């Protein structure tokens, strides 16, 4: 089986609307999962950051979730949640939690004691300190966690086609299941290149997001 560049270009020209749609789906499912994981992860991080026991438990649990092979996790979710978007999003959220929770905890704990003390000494309640001092100061670190999660989930999302999930994985699986046919390699290659392309674009986007959402006083 040889790579036919002309064939690949023709394939792209014919199916560019399908490719764009799958790219869009892939991006959407990853974004949706990251937003959900961000809310859960930061929320959990805020609850456990100052409780050593809970903190270790949560991080260990999120770590375990990450070690489950993606194919196995999807297979486990299948009987409960069926096919399509639901098991995909749940799996991606589970994979995203570890970097987000861990970075939230690290970020909240990294605020220097002197700043914590002056915040309390000025009459902020512990919750106000968390919301107005610790969270904004931890934000760049939390975003780094989200960025790692994004890279992770863009890859994992490709596997989600196994449970009829959305995204570029559909092309990859279609190619793999029709090996030998004329367009098999084109399908698999397009899916794979699409994932790599998306990963690069999203990573670049995070540079901009970090810049825009971080206080000027915190930038190096």
């Amino acid at each position, binding site marked *: 089986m040889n790579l036919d560049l002309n064939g690949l270009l023709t394939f792209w020209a014919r199916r560019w609307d399908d490719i764009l749609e799958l790219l869009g789906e892939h991006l959407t499912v990853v974004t949706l999962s990251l937003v959900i994981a961000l809310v859960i992860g930061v929320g959990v991080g805020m609850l456990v950051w100052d409780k050593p026991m809970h903190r270790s438990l949560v991080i260990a649990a999120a770590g375990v979730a990450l070690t489950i092979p993606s194919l196995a996790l999807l297979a486990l979710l299948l009987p409960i949640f069926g096919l399509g978007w639901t098991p995909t999003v749940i799996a991606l959220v589970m994979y995203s939690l570890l970097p987000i929770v861990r970075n939230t905890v690290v970020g909240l704990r990294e605020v220097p004691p002197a700043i914590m003390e002056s915040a309390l*000494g*000025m009459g902020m309640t512990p919750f106000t300190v968390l919301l107005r*001092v610790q969270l904004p100061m931890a934000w760049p670190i939390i975003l780094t966690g989200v960025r790692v999660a994004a890279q992770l989930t863009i890859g994992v999302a490709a596997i989600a086609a196994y449970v009829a999930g959305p995204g570029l994985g559909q092309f990859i699986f279609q190619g793999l299941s029709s090996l030998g046919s004329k367009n098999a390699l084109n399908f698999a290659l397009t899916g794979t290149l699409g994932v790599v392309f998306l990963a690069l674009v999203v990573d670049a986007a995070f540079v901009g997001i970090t810049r825009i959402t971080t206080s000027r006083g915190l930038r190096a």
Partner: protein
Amino acid sequence: MPKQPNTALLQISGKTSGALIELNSVTKQYPNQPVAAVENFSVTVQPGELIMLVGPSGCGKTTTMKMINRIIEPTSGSISIDGRDVLSLNPSELRRHIGYVIQQIGLFPHMTIAENIGVVPKLLGWSKEKTNDRVDELLTTVGLEPGDFALRYPKQLSGGQQQRVGVARALAADPPVMLMDEPFGATDPITREKLQAEFLRLQASMGKTIIFVTHDFDEAVRLGDRIAVLSNRSRIEQFDTPANILTNPANDYVSSFIGLGTAIKRLVLIPVTEARLGPASAAPASATTVRTTDSLRDALDSLVLTGLPALAVLDEHNQGVGSISVDRISAVLGAEVPTLGSEA
């Protein structure tokens, strides 16, 4: 919206200068520690007084101060501000009426200077205009041009400028009480001296009740109305005015803490005008002169530097009012300083 503070808090927050602070048999015992960090500490601070807690590291002076705004909770004893029991108030609401400055300053790096100063006003529910006006006023008070500094971030300021903002932030809601924990300790000697002078000028116009912690006895002499010299477990070895402590140290511990050169330290407290000045003609022509607003320490410094027998003393209109010499400085201190010559 912030809750309406209770009446006790209103009583404290109603005034902007001077409140009476009383600590009665205050003790802090940490669990699993054989001895108390602070034991049976009692002190009464008059309204508008600047009290220095001075002692070596680990003597419990900072712990003592931090119990007043309940950053550290006392194990036993009572603390009151203007007769109101501090320990019965909501700690967060209480702290909004006590200015707090620490050595590491603790400015919030993600907030502008204006936002940093506006933290307590915001917590108290002030309007935006009122807060902004107050921020501008305070920046001007501490010698930072509001137009230039309000929108900067802490990292864009020098250490001395940051500490000025720290003081401005503590003053934001015009609290009657200020707690200061070695606020100038981390600055270089020149900046520190400048900040101390500005601080004294500020306090002269504000009349806050201030508890100021330092390990630097010279700073205590320079700034304090009264000094509490502390030894281990925050035990008060002597509590008196700087002049009285320098003249009559209560015991060997106090003497050793004051260290050498008590005569020179006392000179800091005495203005040049206290001396019986010699005739203006006694001073040889020199570019170096002494001002009537200077201390005798400044005068002695200039005398030693120039090596001249006497220097002219000028008033605020640059008019010569007399001359000062080493023996005239000695005369002010009386006969108790036979070693002045060798110490200078």
